[in-house]
């Protein structure tokens, strides 16, 4: 069940976000990046359970923290510099 959920997340969630990252305005690409980071956080959390290594949840925690600060920097950059 977990493997199927990961597959659906990567194909149904990650695929459209990757396509949206490659086209559109910079701000719409940023929205796609936010959604992609959320999808990848869910994927890594599921993989940690799937492989039975719950210490890998730290990867999810770091990903959520770093994507938050990174996207704030991108938003500030797009709002002021371009």
């Amino acid at each position, binding site marked *: 069940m977990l493997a199927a959920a990961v597959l659906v997340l990567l194909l149904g969630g990650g695929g459209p976000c990757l396509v949206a990252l490659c086209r559109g305005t910079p701000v719409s690409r940023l929205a796609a990046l936010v959604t992609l980071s*959320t999808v990848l956080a*869910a994927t890594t*959390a599921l993989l940690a359970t799937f492989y039975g290594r719950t210490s890998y949840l730290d990867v999810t925690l770091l990903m959520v923290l770093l994507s938050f600060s990174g996207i704030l920097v991108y938003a500030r950059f797009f*709002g002021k510099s371009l």
Partner: protein
Amino acid sequence: MSAPDVAQAVLLWAGVLVLVVSAVGTSLAGTVFDRLHYMSLGAMAGLPLVLLSQVFATPDQAPKLVVIALLEMLGSPALTTATARALDRRRGRS
């Protein structure tokens, strides 16, 4: 199949469904503001549902999962606001 297993499956697939709808909506919505709505849908509902389903699978990791879900739920409005503000500033210049 026990009750926790059913709860885990329901929460997991509900979260996956919400995340997929969020991703497809973010990619295909007409305006950027519509995309922002879909973007926050995944962070506010999709990821917490997936993480909550994993609480049933690994109860000893429940605090960490709850912290991750709370961080995402608290950070998502800030990200949406920052993105919308960036869009507003860009429109103001053009």
